[in-house]
Protein backbone atom coordinates (compact mmCIF):
# COMPACT_ATOMS: atom_id res chain seq x y z
CA UNK A 1 0.00 0.00 0.00
CA UNK A 2 1.21 3.52 -0.81
CA UNK A 3 2.09 5.70 2.17
CA UNK A 4 2.59 9.46 2.32
CA UNK A 5 3.44 12.03 5.02
CA UNK A 6 1.92 15.51 4.65
CA UNK A 7 2.22 18.87 6.39
CA UNK A 8 -0.88 20.49 7.87
CA UNK A 9 -2.23 23.03 6.87
CA UNK A 10 -2.33 21.07 3.62
CA UNK A 11 -1.30 22.40 0.20
CA UNK A 12 -3.33 21.86 -3.02
CA UNK A 13 -0.37 20.17 -4.75
CA UNK A 14 -0.13 17.64 -1.91
CA UNK A 15 -3.83 16.90 -2.05
CA UNK A 16 -3.55 16.23 -5.79
CA UNK A 17 -1.15 13.35 -5.00
CA UNK A 18 -3.72 11.52 -2.87
CA UNK A 19 -5.61 8.55 -4.27
CA UNK A 20 -8.37 6.52 -2.61
CA UNK A 21 -6.73 3.76 -0.55
CA UNK A 22 -3.43 5.54 0.25
CA UNK A 23 -2.11 5.60 3.84
CA UNK A 24 -1.50 9.12 5.22
CA UNK A 25 0.33 10.52 8.26
CA UNK A 26 0.20 14.24 9.16
CA UNK A 27 2.55 16.76 10.82
CA UNK A 28 1.45 20.24 11.81
CA UNK A 29 -1.74 21.79 13.13
CA UNK A 30 -5.39 20.77 12.91
CA UNK A 31 -8.61 21.39 14.76
CA UNK A 32 -11.55 19.27 15.91
CA UNK A 33 -15.11 20.18 15.04
CA UNK A 34 -18.41 18.35 14.70
CA UNK A 35 -22.13 19.10 15.00
CA UNK A 36 -21.70 21.45 17.98
CA UNK A 37 -19.30 23.67 16.03
CA UNK A 38 -21.25 23.46 12.77
CA UNK A 39 -24.53 24.34 14.48
CA UNK A 40 -23.12 27.39 16.18
CA UNK A 41 -21.23 28.74 13.21
CA UNK A 42 -23.46 27.70 10.30
CA UNK A 43 -26.96 27.48 11.77
CA UNK A 44 -26.81 30.12 14.50
CA UNK A 45 -24.49 32.43 12.60
CA UNK A 46 -21.95 32.95 15.39
CA UNK A 47 -18.48 33.90 14.20
CA UNK A 48 -15.91 31.09 14.54
CA UNK A 49 -13.98 31.30 17.85
CA UNK A 50 -10.69 31.81 15.99
CA UNK A 51 -9.79 32.84 12.47
CA UNK A 52 -9.85 29.32 11.06
CA UNK A 53 -7.94 29.96 7.84
CA UNK A 54 -5.02 31.26 9.91
CA UNK A 55 -4.95 28.13 12.11
CA UNK A 56 -5.37 25.21 9.75
CA UNK A 57 -7.42 23.84 6.87
CA UNK A 58 -7.71 20.37 8.40
CA UNK A 59 -10.91 19.59 10.31
CA UNK A 60 -11.00 16.42 12.41
CA UNK A 61 -14.46 14.95 13.25
CA UNK A 62 -13.33 13.96 16.68
CA UNK A 63 -14.04 13.99 20.36
CA UNK A 64 -10.96 13.32 22.45
CA UNK A 65 -10.98 11.38 25.73
CA UNK A 66 -9.55 14.40 27.49
CA UNK A 67 -9.74 16.18 30.81
CA UNK A 68 -8.96 19.68 32.01
CA UNK A 69 -6.49 19.49 34.94
CA UNK A 70 -7.07 21.65 38.02
CA UNK A 71 -4.20 23.95 36.89
CA UNK A 72 -6.04 24.57 33.59
CA UNK A 73 -3.76 22.41 31.44
CA UNK A 74 -5.13 19.59 29.33
CA UNK A 75 -4.68 15.84 29.50
CA UNK A 76 -5.40 14.13 26.19
CA UNK A 77 -5.57 10.34 26.34
CA UNK A 78 -7.05 8.63 23.34
CA UNK A 79 -8.36 10.30 20.20
CA UNK A 80 -10.88 8.72 17.86
CA UNK A 81 -13.09 10.02 15.08
CA UNK A 82 -16.86 10.00 15.04
CA UNK A 83 -19.03 8.87 12.09
CA UNK A 84 -18.93 11.67 9.51
CA UNK A 85 -21.94 10.90 7.32
CA UNK A 86 -24.14 12.77 9.82
CA UNK A 87 -22.39 16.04 8.97
CA UNK A 88 -22.67 15.99 5.18
CA UNK A 89 -25.46 18.62 5.12
CA UNK A 90 -23.06 21.21 6.54
CA UNK A 91 -20.00 20.49 4.38
CA UNK A 92 -20.41 22.88 1.45
CA UNK A 93 -21.08 25.86 3.70
CA UNK A 94 -18.28 24.79 6.03
CA UNK A 95 -15.74 24.74 3.20
CA UNK A 96 -16.90 28.27 2.27
CA UNK A 97 -16.71 29.71 5.76
CA UNK A 98 -13.57 27.97 7.00
CA UNK A 99 -11.37 27.44 3.95
CA UNK A 100 -11.09 23.80 5.09
CA UNK A 101 -9.52 21.44 2.52
CA UNK A 102 -9.22 18.19 4.42
CA UNK A 103 -11.77 16.39 6.57
CA UNK A 104 -10.65 13.53 8.78
CA UNK A 105 -13.36 11.37 10.28
CA UNK A 106 -14.84 7.93 10.63
CA UNK A 107 -16.40 6.02 7.78
CA UNK A 108 -16.41 8.63 5.06
CA UNK A 109 -19.32 10.26 3.27
CA UNK A 110 -21.03 9.22 0.06
CA UNK A 111 -19.45 9.44 -3.36
CA UNK A 112 -22.22 11.88 -4.19
CA UNK A 113 -21.14 14.12 -1.28
CA UNK A 114 -17.57 14.04 -2.52
CA UNK A 115 -18.60 15.02 -6.05
CA UNK A 116 -21.06 17.71 -4.94
CA UNK A 117 -19.27 19.27 -1.97
CA UNK A 118 -15.64 18.17 -1.79
CA UNK A 119 -14.30 18.11 -5.35
CA UNK A 120 -15.61 21.61 -6.28
CA UNK A 121 -13.90 22.95 -3.14
CA UNK A 122 -10.64 21.07 -3.72
CA UNK A 123 -11.14 19.11 -0.53
CA UNK A 124 -10.36 15.49 0.37
CA UNK A 125 -11.61 13.09 3.01
CA UNK A 126 -9.41 10.81 5.14
CA UNK A 127 -10.84 8.09 7.35
CA UNK A 128 -9.39 6.80 10.59
CA UNK A 129 -8.55 3.10 10.65
CA UNK A 130 -10.19 0.33 12.58
CA UNK A 131 -12.03 1.92 14.33
CA UNK A 132 -10.39 3.37 16.17
CA UNK A 133 -6.73 3.55 16.72
CA UNK A 134 -7.32 5.93 19.63
CA UNK A 135 -4.03 5.27 21.41
CA UNK A 136 -1.90 5.62 18.27
CA UNK A 137 -3.62 8.90 17.39
CA UNK A 138 -3.29 10.08 21.01
CA UNK A 139 0.49 9.52 20.70
CA UNK A 140 0.56 11.72 17.61
CA UNK A 141 -0.77 14.74 19.51
CA UNK A 142 2.23 16.66 20.75
CA UNK A 143 0.48 19.67 22.24
CA UNK A 144 -2.94 21.17 22.80
CA UNK A 145 -2.53 24.68 21.41
CA UNK A 146 -5.92 25.87 22.65
CA UNK A 147 -9.51 24.82 23.27
CA UNK A 148 -12.49 26.93 22.24
CA UNK A 149 -16.13 26.86 23.34
CA UNK A 150 -15.29 24.32 26.05
CA UNK A 151 -17.90 25.77 28.38
CA UNK A 152 -20.56 26.15 25.72
CA UNK A 153 -20.12 22.76 24.04
CA UNK A 154 -18.44 20.48 26.60
CA UNK A 155 -15.27 18.43 26.26
CA UNK A 156 -16.59 16.19 23.49
CA UNK A 157 -17.92 18.91 21.19
CA UNK A 158 -15.50 21.75 21.93
CA UNK A 159 -13.03 22.88 19.28
CA UNK A 160 -9.57 21.55 20.17
CA UNK A 161 -6.55 22.84 18.30
CA UNK A 162 -3.82 20.18 18.23
CA UNK A 163 -0.16 20.25 17.18
CA UNK A 164 0.54 16.81 15.73
CA UNK A 165 3.48 14.71 14.57
CA UNK A 166 3.34 11.48 12.56
CA UNK A 167 -0.39 11.63 13.25
CA UNK A 168 -2.12 8.58 11.79
CA UNK A 169 -2.60 6.18 10.20
CA UNK A 170 -5.41 7.45 7.99
CA UNK A 171 -6.71 6.08 4.69
CA UNK A 172 -7.74 8.33 1.81
CA UNK A 173 -11.44 7.71 1.23
CA UNK A 174 -12.44 10.68 -0.94
CA UNK A 175 -9.82 11.93 -3.40
CA UNK A 176 -9.90 14.94 -5.72
CA UNK A 177 -11.27 12.80 -8.56
CA UNK A 178 -14.37 12.11 -6.46
CA UNK A 179 -13.57 8.44 -5.82
CA UNK A 180 -14.63 6.84 -2.56
CA UNK A 181 -12.67 3.87 -1.26
CA UNK A 182 -15.68 2.73 0.78
CA UNK A 183 -17.97 2.76 -2.22
CA UNK A 184 -15.40 0.99 -4.40
CA UNK A 185 -15.25 -1.73 -1.74
CA UNK A 186 -19.05 -1.72 -1.31
CA UNK A 187 -19.50 -2.50 -4.98
CA UNK A 188 -17.14 -5.47 -4.71
CA UNK A 189 -18.96 -6.74 -1.59
CA UNK A 190 -22.36 -6.28 -3.25
CA UNK A 191 -21.30 -8.44 -6.18
CA UNK A 192 -21.09 -11.46 -3.87
CA UNK A 193 -23.85 -10.62 -1.42
CA UNK A 194 -26.51 -12.74 -3.09
CA UNK A 195 -24.36 -15.84 -2.48
CA UNK A 196 -24.35 -15.22 1.29
CA UNK A 197 -28.16 -15.30 1.36
CA UNK A 198 -28.53 -18.21 -1.06
CA UNK A 199 -31.31 -20.63 -0.14
CA UNK A 200 -32.65 -18.69 2.88
CA UNK A 201 -36.40 -18.13 2.77
CA UNK A 202 -38.04 -14.81 3.66
CA UNK A 203 -39.52 -14.48 7.16
CA UNK A 204 -43.34 -14.46 7.50
CA UNK A 205 -43.58 -10.88 8.73
CA UNK A 206 -41.97 -8.06 6.77
CA UNK A 207 -40.74 -4.85 8.42
CA UNK A 208 -41.25 -1.22 7.60
CA UNK A 209 -38.08 0.20 6.26
CA UNK A 210 -36.67 2.95 4.11
CA UNK A 211 -34.93 0.44 1.89
CA UNK A 212 -35.47 -3.21 1.08
CA UNK A 213 -32.41 -3.49 -1.12
CA UNK A 214 -29.35 -5.01 0.51
CA UNK A 215 -27.20 -3.16 -1.97
CA UNK A 216 -28.17 0.12 -0.32
CA UNK A 217 -26.38 1.54 2.68
CA UNK A 218 -28.46 2.52 5.70
CA UNK A 219 -26.45 5.66 6.46
Amino acid at each position, binding site marked *: *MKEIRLKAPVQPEDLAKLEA*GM*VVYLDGVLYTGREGLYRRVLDEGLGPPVELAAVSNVNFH*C*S*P*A*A*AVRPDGSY*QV*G*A*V*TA*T*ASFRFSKWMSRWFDVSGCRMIIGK*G*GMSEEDYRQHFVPNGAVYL*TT*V*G*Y*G*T*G*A*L*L*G*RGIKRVRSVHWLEEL*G*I*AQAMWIFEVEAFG*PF*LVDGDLKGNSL*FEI*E*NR*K*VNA*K*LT*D*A*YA*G*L*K*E*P*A*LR*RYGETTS*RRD*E*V*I
Partner: protein
Amino acid sequence: MSGPRLIAASAIEDVAFELTRQAAIVIPKDYSDGIKAMLETEENELSKFVLKAMVENWEAAETDRRAMCADTGLPRFYVKAGNEAMVEGGFVALEKALRRAVARATSEVPLRPNRVHPLSRADHNNNVGIRAPEIDYSFEPEADWLDLTTVHKGGLFGTDYRMLFPGDGLDGIKKFFLDVLVQFGRRGLACQPAIIGIGLGGSKDTAMTIGKQAACLRIVGDRNPDPKIAALEAELKALGNSIGMGPMGFVGTSMVVDCHIEVAHTHTGGMPMSVHAFCLSSRRAVARLRAGGKVEYRTDPAWFTSYHRREGVE
Protein backbone atom coordinates in the same frame (compact mmCIF):
# COMPACT_ATOMS: atom_id res chain seq x y z
CA MET B 1 -19.85 -1.81 60.83
CA SER B 2 -17.21 -4.11 59.45
CA GLY B 3 -16.27 -7.64 60.22
CA PRO B 4 -14.38 -10.62 58.88
CA ARG B 5 -17.29 -11.76 56.67
CA LEU B 6 -18.07 -8.36 55.17
CA ILE B 7 -16.81 -7.06 51.83
CA ALA B 8 -15.83 -3.43 52.48
CA ALA B 9 -17.57 -0.72 50.44
CA SER B 10 -14.28 1.20 50.13
CA ALA B 11 -12.67 -1.90 48.58
CA ILE B 12 -15.50 -2.06 46.06
CA GLU B 13 -14.91 1.54 45.01
CA ASP B 14 -11.15 0.99 44.61
CA VAL B 15 -11.63 -2.21 42.62
CA ALA B 16 -14.34 -0.65 40.44
CA PHE B 17 -12.00 2.26 39.67
CA GLU B 18 -9.16 -0.10 38.77
CA LEU B 19 -11.48 -2.23 36.60
CA THR B 20 -12.68 0.86 34.79
CA ARG B 21 -9.11 1.89 34.03
CA GLN B 22 -8.10 -1.65 32.97
CA ALA B 23 -11.10 -2.02 30.69
CA ALA B 24 -10.36 1.27 28.93
CA ILE B 25 -6.66 0.54 28.40
CA VAL B 26 -6.00 -3.20 28.17
CA ILE B 27 -7.61 -5.32 25.45
CA PRO B 28 -8.63 -8.73 26.83
CA LYS B 29 -6.20 -11.45 25.70
CA ASP B 30 -8.91 -13.75 24.32
CA TYR B 31 -10.02 -10.98 21.96
CA SER B 32 -6.54 -9.90 20.80
CA ASP B 33 -5.58 -13.56 20.26
CA GLY B 34 -8.74 -13.95 18.17
CA ILE B 35 -7.81 -10.96 16.00
CA LYS B 36 -4.22 -12.16 15.62
CA ALA B 37 -5.56 -15.52 14.42
CA MET B 38 -7.70 -13.66 11.85
CA LEU B 39 -4.57 -11.85 10.64
CA GLU B 40 -3.15 -15.28 9.72
CA THR B 41 -6.09 -16.14 7.48
CA GLU B 42 -7.11 -12.71 6.08
CA GLU B 43 -5.84 -12.31 2.51
CA ASN B 44 -7.16 -8.88 1.53
CA GLU B 45 -4.46 -6.21 1.74
CA LEU B 46 -6.70 -3.42 3.09
CA SER B 47 -8.35 -5.68 5.67
CA LYS B 48 -4.95 -6.96 6.81
CA PHE B 49 -3.72 -3.36 7.15
CA VAL B 50 -6.67 -2.53 9.43
CA LEU B 51 -6.13 -5.58 11.66
CA LYS B 52 -2.41 -4.82 11.98
CA ALA B 53 -3.17 -1.19 12.91
CA MET B 54 -5.55 -2.39 15.63
CA VAL B 55 -2.92 -4.73 17.11
CA GLU B 56 -0.40 -1.85 17.13
CA ASN B 57 -3.00 0.38 18.74
CA TRP B 58 -3.57 -2.04 21.63
CA GLU B 59 0.18 -2.22 22.19
CA ALA B 60 0.40 1.60 22.21
CA ALA B 61 -2.50 1.82 24.69
CA GLU B 62 -0.83 -0.57 27.12
CA THR B 63 2.63 0.98 26.80
CA ASP B 64 1.38 4.58 27.16
CA ARG B 65 -1.35 3.67 29.67
CA ARG B 66 -3.92 5.56 27.61
CA ALA B 67 -7.41 4.51 26.52
CA MET B 68 -7.38 2.28 23.42
CA CYS B 69 -10.28 4.20 21.85
CA ALA B 70 -11.40 7.73 22.57
CA ASP B 71 -15.02 6.69 22.44
CA THR B 72 -14.67 5.04 25.81
CA GLY B 73 -18.24 3.74 25.55
CA LEU B 74 -20.81 3.65 28.30
CA PRO B 75 -19.27 2.30 31.52
CA ARG B 76 -21.59 -0.18 33.27
CA PHE B 77 -21.35 -3.01 35.78
CA TYR B 78 -22.45 -6.59 36.14
CA VAL B 79 -22.49 -7.80 39.73
CA LYS B 80 -22.62 -11.50 40.52
CA ALA B 81 -23.07 -11.98 44.23
CA GLY B 82 -22.54 -15.25 46.03
CA ASN B 83 -25.62 -16.17 48.06
CA GLU B 84 -23.57 -15.89 51.24
CA ALA B 85 -21.77 -12.64 50.28
CA MET B 86 -22.31 -9.66 52.56
CA VAL B 87 -21.46 -6.12 51.60
CA GLU B 88 -20.62 -3.52 54.22
CA GLY B 89 -23.48 -1.02 54.09
CA GLY B 90 -25.51 -3.37 51.88
CA PHE B 91 -26.16 -3.05 48.16
CA VAL B 92 -27.00 0.64 48.39
CA ALA B 93 -23.40 1.20 49.53
CA LEU B 94 -22.19 -0.95 46.63
CA GLU B 95 -24.14 1.12 44.11
CA LYS B 96 -22.82 4.38 45.57
CA ALA B 97 -19.28 2.98 45.35
CA LEU B 98 -19.73 2.08 41.69
CA ARG B 99 -21.07 5.53 40.82
CA ARG B 100 -18.19 7.23 42.64
CA ALA B 101 -15.66 5.00 40.87
CA VAL B 102 -17.02 5.91 37.43
CA ALA B 103 -16.99 9.64 38.19
CA ARG B 104 -13.39 9.46 39.43
CA ALA B 105 -12.17 7.30 36.53
CA THR B 106 -13.74 9.69 34.01
CA SER B 107 -11.42 12.51 35.07
CA GLU B 108 -8.39 10.44 36.09
CA VAL B 109 -7.99 7.88 33.24
CA PRO B 110 -9.40 10.01 31.46
CA LEU B 111 -12.55 8.60 29.85
CA ARG B 112 -14.69 10.63 27.49
CA PRO B 113 -17.72 11.98 29.35
CA ASN B 114 -20.15 10.30 26.97
CA ARG B 115 -23.25 10.28 29.14
CA VAL B 116 -25.73 13.05 28.45
CA HIS B 117 -29.42 13.58 29.20
CA PRO B 118 -31.32 12.20 26.17
CA LEU B 119 -33.36 15.36 25.61
CA SER B 120 -31.46 18.31 27.04
CA ARG B 121 -28.12 16.68 26.06
CA ALA B 122 -26.73 18.09 29.32
CA ASP B 123 -23.45 16.40 30.31
CA HIS B 124 -22.39 15.97 33.94
CA ASN B 125 -18.86 15.36 32.60
CA ASN B 126 -18.50 12.26 34.80
CA ASN B 127 -20.42 9.48 33.01
CA VAL B 128 -22.89 9.37 35.92
CA GLY B 129 -26.56 10.24 35.59
CA ILE B 130 -30.05 8.82 35.53
CA ARG B 131 -29.62 5.01 35.32
CA ALA B 132 -25.96 5.53 34.57
CA PRO B 133 -23.86 3.50 35.11
CA GLU B 134 -26.28 0.59 34.64
CA ILE B 135 -25.87 -2.11 37.28
CA ASP B 136 -27.16 -5.62 36.60
CA TYR B 137 -27.24 -8.44 39.13
CA SER B 138 -27.00 -12.18 39.15
CA PHE B 139 -26.57 -14.59 42.05
CA GLU B 140 -24.59 -17.76 42.65
CA PRO B 141 -25.40 -20.46 45.21
CA GLU B 142 -22.91 -21.66 47.82
CA ALA B 143 -20.49 -18.77 47.33
CA ASP B 144 -19.43 -15.86 49.52
CA TRP B 145 -17.55 -13.78 46.94
CA LEU B 146 -18.64 -10.86 44.81
CA ASP B 147 -17.74 -10.82 41.09
CA LEU B 148 -17.58 -7.35 39.64
CA THR B 149 -17.44 -6.97 35.85
CA THR B 150 -17.27 -3.71 33.99
CA VAL B 151 -18.09 -3.38 30.30
CA HIS B 152 -17.65 -0.18 28.29
CA LYS B 153 -19.53 -0.80 25.08
CA GLY B 154 -19.60 1.74 22.30
CA GLY B 155 -23.01 2.86 21.42
CA LEU B 156 -24.40 3.63 18.05
CA PHE B 157 -24.18 0.81 15.53
CA GLY B 158 -24.25 -2.97 15.36
CA THR B 159 -27.36 -3.85 17.33
CA ASP B 160 -30.82 -4.75 16.09
CA TYR B 161 -33.94 -6.58 17.25
CA ARG B 162 -36.58 -8.49 15.31
CA MET B 163 -39.66 -10.52 16.14
CA LEU B 164 -39.43 -13.72 14.14
CA PHE B 165 -41.97 -16.54 14.24
CA PRO B 166 -41.49 -20.25 14.89
CA GLY B 167 -42.17 -21.02 11.23
CA ASP B 168 -39.29 -18.77 10.18
CA GLY B 169 -36.98 -21.38 11.69
CA LEU B 170 -33.23 -21.41 11.30
CA ASP B 171 -33.52 -19.63 7.95
CA GLY B 172 -35.09 -16.65 9.71
CA ILE B 173 -32.31 -16.59 12.30
CA LYS B 174 -29.56 -16.81 9.71
CA LYS B 175 -31.15 -14.20 7.50
CA PHE B 176 -31.58 -11.64 10.25
CA PHE B 177 -28.04 -12.34 11.45
CA LEU B 178 -26.75 -11.58 7.94
CA ASP B 179 -28.98 -8.49 7.66
CA VAL B 180 -27.48 -6.98 10.81
CA LEU B 181 -23.89 -7.74 9.82
CA VAL B 182 -24.40 -6.33 6.32
CA GLN B 183 -26.29 -3.18 7.34
CA PHE B 184 -23.86 -2.21 10.10
CA GLY B 185 -20.76 -3.73 8.53
CA ARG B 186 -20.68 -1.20 5.70
CA ARG B 187 -17.81 1.24 6.21
CA GLY B 188 -17.08 -0.70 9.38
CA LEU B 189 -19.69 1.12 11.45
CA ALA B 190 -19.99 -1.94 13.71
CA CYS B 191 -16.22 -1.67 14.32
CA GLN B 192 -15.77 -5.29 13.23
CA PRO B 193 -14.34 -7.91 13.53
CA ALA B 194 -16.55 -8.16 16.59
CA ILE B 195 -17.80 -10.68 19.08
CA ILE B 196 -21.38 -11.13 17.89
CA GLY B 197 -23.91 -11.89 20.62
CA ILE B 198 -27.34 -13.27 19.80
CA GLY B 199 -30.34 -13.37 22.10
CA LEU B 200 -33.04 -15.86 21.17
CA GLY B 201 -36.37 -16.05 22.95
CA GLY B 202 -37.59 -14.71 26.26
CA SER B 203 -39.76 -11.62 26.25
CA LYS B 204 -38.55 -8.81 24.00
CA ASP B 205 -36.46 -7.10 26.67
CA THR B 206 -34.96 -10.44 27.69
CA ALA B 207 -33.99 -11.16 24.09
CA MET B 208 -32.14 -7.82 24.03
CA THR B 209 -30.52 -8.33 27.41
CA ILE B 210 -29.20 -11.85 26.91
CA GLY B 211 -27.96 -11.06 23.41
CA LYS B 212 -25.97 -8.11 24.72
CA GLN B 213 -24.63 -10.20 27.58
CA ALA B 214 -23.69 -12.98 25.13
CA ALA B 215 -21.56 -10.43 23.24
CA CYS B 216 -20.04 -8.68 26.23
CA LEU B 217 -19.78 -11.34 28.95
CA ARG B 218 -18.53 -14.42 27.09
CA ILE B 219 -14.98 -14.70 25.82
CA VAL B 220 -13.64 -15.65 22.39
CA GLY B 221 -13.49 -19.45 22.16
CA ASP B 222 -16.30 -20.06 24.66
CA ARG B 223 -19.15 -22.33 23.53
CA ASN B 224 -22.68 -22.70 24.83
CA PRO B 225 -22.93 -25.98 26.83
CA ASP B 226 -25.99 -27.05 24.78
CA PRO B 227 -24.42 -28.92 21.81
CA LYS B 228 -27.12 -27.79 19.37
CA ILE B 229 -26.66 -24.13 20.31
CA ALA B 230 -22.88 -24.56 20.21
CA ALA B 231 -23.17 -25.97 16.67
CA LEU B 232 -25.31 -22.98 15.63
CA GLU B 233 -22.73 -20.59 17.12
CA ALA B 234 -20.01 -22.20 14.99
CA GLU B 235 -22.25 -22.19 11.91
CA LEU B 236 -23.16 -18.50 12.26
CA LYS B 237 -19.54 -17.53 12.86
CA ALA B 238 -18.56 -19.26 9.61
CA LEU B 239 -21.56 -17.72 7.81
CA GLY B 240 -20.61 -14.20 8.98
CA ASN B 241 -17.05 -14.65 7.79
CA SER B 242 -18.22 -15.89 4.39
CA ILE B 243 -20.14 -12.73 3.44
CA GLY B 244 -17.06 -11.32 1.74
CA MET B 245 -16.90 -8.29 4.03
CA GLY B 246 -14.16 -7.55 6.54
CA PRO B 247 -12.94 -4.71 8.76
CA MET B 248 -14.20 -1.23 7.76
CA GLY B 249 -16.50 -2.87 5.22
CA PHE B 250 -13.55 -3.65 2.95
CA VAL B 251 -13.47 -6.92 1.04
CA GLY B 252 -12.33 -9.62 3.43
CA THR B 253 -13.08 -12.67 5.53
CA SER B 254 -12.66 -11.14 9.02
CA MET B 255 -16.08 -10.13 10.28
CA VAL B 256 -16.94 -12.30 13.29
CA VAL B 257 -14.19 -13.08 15.80
CA ASP B 258 -16.68 -15.28 17.62
CA CYS B 259 -20.42 -15.80 17.87
CA HIS B 260 -22.24 -16.44 21.15
CA ILE B 261 -25.90 -17.38 21.49
CA GLU B 262 -27.97 -17.24 24.65
CA VAL B 263 -31.54 -18.50 24.82
CA ALA B 264 -34.56 -18.02 27.07
CA HIS B 265 -37.91 -19.80 27.04
CA THR B 266 -40.29 -17.66 25.04
CA HIS B 267 -43.92 -17.21 23.97
CA THR B 268 -45.18 -20.24 22.06
CA GLY B 269 -46.15 -18.04 19.11
CA GLY B 270 -42.93 -16.10 18.71
CA MET B 271 -39.16 -16.18 18.32
CA PRO B 272 -37.72 -12.77 19.28
CA MET B 273 -34.10 -12.30 18.26
CA SER B 274 -31.47 -9.68 18.96
CA VAL B 275 -27.98 -9.25 17.50
CA HIS B 276 -25.18 -7.24 19.16
CA ALA B 277 -21.63 -6.45 18.04
CA PHE B 278 -18.95 -5.97 20.70
CA CYS B 279 -16.37 -3.93 18.83
CA LEU B 280 -12.62 -3.84 18.13
CA SER B 281 -12.24 -2.19 21.53
CA SER B 282 -13.98 -4.95 23.48
CA ARG B 283 -13.59 -3.37 26.89
CA ARG B 284 -14.29 -5.73 29.76
CA ALA B 285 -12.53 -6.39 33.06
CA VAL B 286 -13.45 -8.57 36.00
CA ALA B 287 -12.49 -8.93 39.66
CA ARG B 288 -13.54 -11.28 42.43
CA LEU B 289 -13.74 -9.66 45.87
CA ARG B 290 -13.71 -11.67 49.07
CA ALA B 291 -14.32 -10.80 52.66
CA GLY B 292 -11.00 -9.85 54.25
CA GLY B 293 -9.92 -7.80 51.26
CA LYS B 294 -8.57 -10.42 48.83
CA VAL B 295 -9.06 -9.38 45.17
CA GLU B 296 -8.37 -11.47 42.05
CA TYR B 297 -8.43 -9.78 38.62
CA ARG B 298 -9.29 -11.60 35.39
CA THR B 299 -10.97 -10.96 31.99
CA ASP B 300 -13.53 -13.78 31.81
CA PRO B 301 -16.75 -12.65 33.51
CA ALA B 302 -17.98 -16.29 33.88
CA TRP B 303 -21.45 -14.72 33.97
CA PHE B 304 -23.35 -17.62 32.39
CA THR B 305 -22.97 -20.24 35.10
CA SER B 306 -25.11 -23.37 35.09
CA TYR B 307 -27.17 -21.76 37.86
CA HIS B 308 -27.63 -18.64 35.70
CA ARG B 309 -28.90 -20.82 32.81
CA ARG B 310 -31.03 -23.06 35.06
CA GLU B 311 -34.10 -24.63 33.48
CA GLY B 312 -36.04 -26.52 36.17
CA VAL B 313 -38.24 -25.44 39.06
CA GLU B 314 -35.62 -25.90 41.79
